[in-house]
């Protein structure tokens, strides 16, 4: 699309005319700015990447950029040490078992609720919605003790759940869902609300029930919003440490991979260079999720529906 625009603009200007030159230049400036900003933004991450490939003694004594000039002393020691650490496989498995439901549950429930908040009328709707947004501000640390107290009373502890044959992660799924819902509902409701009302009325006349409208119209049309929500919720859950420790604990059979990786470092900060490697390692999964969902951020998903 941008290509088409560019050619059209060029055709308006005579080659080598001042206007042509100006347009060419602004194109070049755009690329310089875009690439410049991206590179600048990447500097800390590049620094981390290079640091992860250096020896601990070098890390402490010189900046990461010195590694870019000879003599090159790159090493994958940090990575191999990290990978040898026990329980990484179990950690990954646990992380997936935690993250998948901890994304599906809040996103689905939030979509139900957001649909109701944006397209159904009920008493107190706006106030409940506002209260939900306000709850975004509740510091999670505040909720740990009251919620776990109730969970322990209900037998919602990993041990007890395992003993009765249920997944030990249930409390954590619910916790991530509860904490993620305000944002999820807020984001989705704002998107749903912007859908053209004619579509809903048309579907109503066509005889579509609420479920059909929801699953066949609202959800397909909200794919970009849902995709971004899935990405964020996944990231937050995948990178979470504290909530997991609180609700299922850090024992290897239930701990997510973040716990295994953070615990590579000794309690006095020994071997902290392993964390640099771990950071890249644990980044792979969220990045794959992002890249695979990126294709849903398409332009003009609503084009052709209601504009003339």
């Amino acid at each position, binding site marked *: 699309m*941008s290509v088409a625009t560019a050619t*059209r603009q060029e055709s308006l200007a005579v080659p080598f005319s001042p206007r042509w030159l100006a347009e060419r230049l602004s194109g070049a400036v755009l690329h310089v700015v*875009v690439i410049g*900003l*991206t590179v600048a*933004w*990447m*500097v*800390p*991450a590049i620094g*981390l990447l290079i640091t992860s490939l250096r020896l601990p003694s070098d890390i402490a*004594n010189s*900046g990461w*950029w010195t590694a870019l000039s000879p003599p090159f002393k790159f090493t994958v020691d940090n990575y191999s040490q990290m990978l040898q650490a026990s329980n990484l*496989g*179990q950690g990954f498995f646990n992380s997936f078992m935690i993250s*998948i*439901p901890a994304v*599906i549950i809040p996103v689905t429930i939030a979509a*139900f*609720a957001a649909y*109701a908040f944006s397209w*159904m*009328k*009920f008493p107190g*709707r706006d106030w*409940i*919605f506002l209260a939900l*947004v*306000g709850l*975004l*501000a*509740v*510091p999670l*640390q*505040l909720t740990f003790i009251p*919620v776990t107290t109730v969970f322990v009373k209900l037998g919602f502890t990993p041990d007890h759940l395992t003993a009765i044959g249920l997944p030990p992660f249930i409390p954590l799924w*619910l916790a991530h*869902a*509860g904490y993620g819902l305000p944002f999820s509902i*807020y*984001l989705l409701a*704002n998107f749903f609300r912007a859908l053209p*009302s004619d579509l809903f009325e048309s579907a109503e006349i066509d005889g579509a*029930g609420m*479920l059909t409208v929801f699953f066949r119209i609202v959800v397909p049309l909200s794919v970009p919003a849902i995709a971004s929500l899935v990405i964020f919720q996944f*990231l937050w859950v995948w*990178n979470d440490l504290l909530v997991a420790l609180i609700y299922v604990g850090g024992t290897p059979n239930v701990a997510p991979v973040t716990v295994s990786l953070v615990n590579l470092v000794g309690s006095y900060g020994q071997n*902290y260079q392993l*964390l640099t490697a771990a*950071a890249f390692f*644990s980044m792979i999964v*969220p*990045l794959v999720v992002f890249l695979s969902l*990126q294709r849903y*951020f398409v*332009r003009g*998903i*609503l084009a052709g529906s209601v*504009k003339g």
Partner: protein
Amino acid sequence: MDWSVLLTDLPTLVAVVIGVPAVLAAYIVGGEYLVRRLPDKNRPAVRPWIWVAPALLLVAGFLVLPAAGTIVQSFQDNRGNFVAFTNFGNQLGGFPTGGAWIAIRDNLFWLIFYTLFVLAFGLLLAVLFDRVPYEKIVKSLIFLPMAISSVATVIIWKFMYAYQPPGQPQTGTLNFLLSTVFHQDPRTWIQDTTPILGLLPLNNLAIIAAAVWGIVGFSMVILSAALKGIPGDLLEAARVDGAGEITIFRRVIFPLMMPTVVVVGTTLVIFALKAFDTVYAMTNGNYDTDVLANRMYKLLYQHFPSDYANASAVAVILLATVIPVLIFNLRQFRAVEARR
């Protein structure tokens, strides 16, 4: 790696892959089935509650009840005796440096600069990237920091801010640039409280910058999605009409993105109010960088025995600051409603 875990954890796997989606689908299909059995007249009254019930229940359990408990606790001492505003007095007395005032001041810095930077960068990047053919690549790169856990983010920024005495080879990226490119003495970014532009202490700025770096991908992705929602022909039309790119942004793109900007802005304001991770890991509030959430955390978990009373008062102050944001949202909400 030991893949035999896959076998021992089979029940979990089954529950995750089949059980969870099944329960969710069964709920909504079953709920709708029940609604349809009601007389026509009652359906519109009952249906919304079926759709919002799971969300409200979860939110009530995890957020509302603890928050309500906190509000009650904020008027009590640690033994549960009513003490009226004593806790708030502790936190709000001693202006401008006593009680929670440093934290309130710093939260204000966060509120302004974090929100502004993240919104402005996110918008700028979304708009710029929209015009280049390699959009997906640059977007992924900018998004990358989001995928890095906050523990690692702090490590990265400690590398960025590392300090060695003047004259020594610098190990921190920023001090390296400062000394080699600008020929200035290195600075202790995280400890230096020199105000920038007479207002924002350098170390607060440094901590905020690290947090901004980690979250810009968030605003960029959402704003970019909103940008893509603007019909292309609208922009083409404006271009054909001879509008410059800046005019198009100001008069066409920005107004159409406004609702999304409000959503992202609101979320960021609340993130700023809740700021914790970066401050906790970088300074734990030392050098006048404290924020409310960190102060609350210290009172709860680094104080033996836990000082629930004062922690609750801090939390209530934090919650109260959200109210203006909510009022703004309500107006926005009603405006959208009225327009359709």
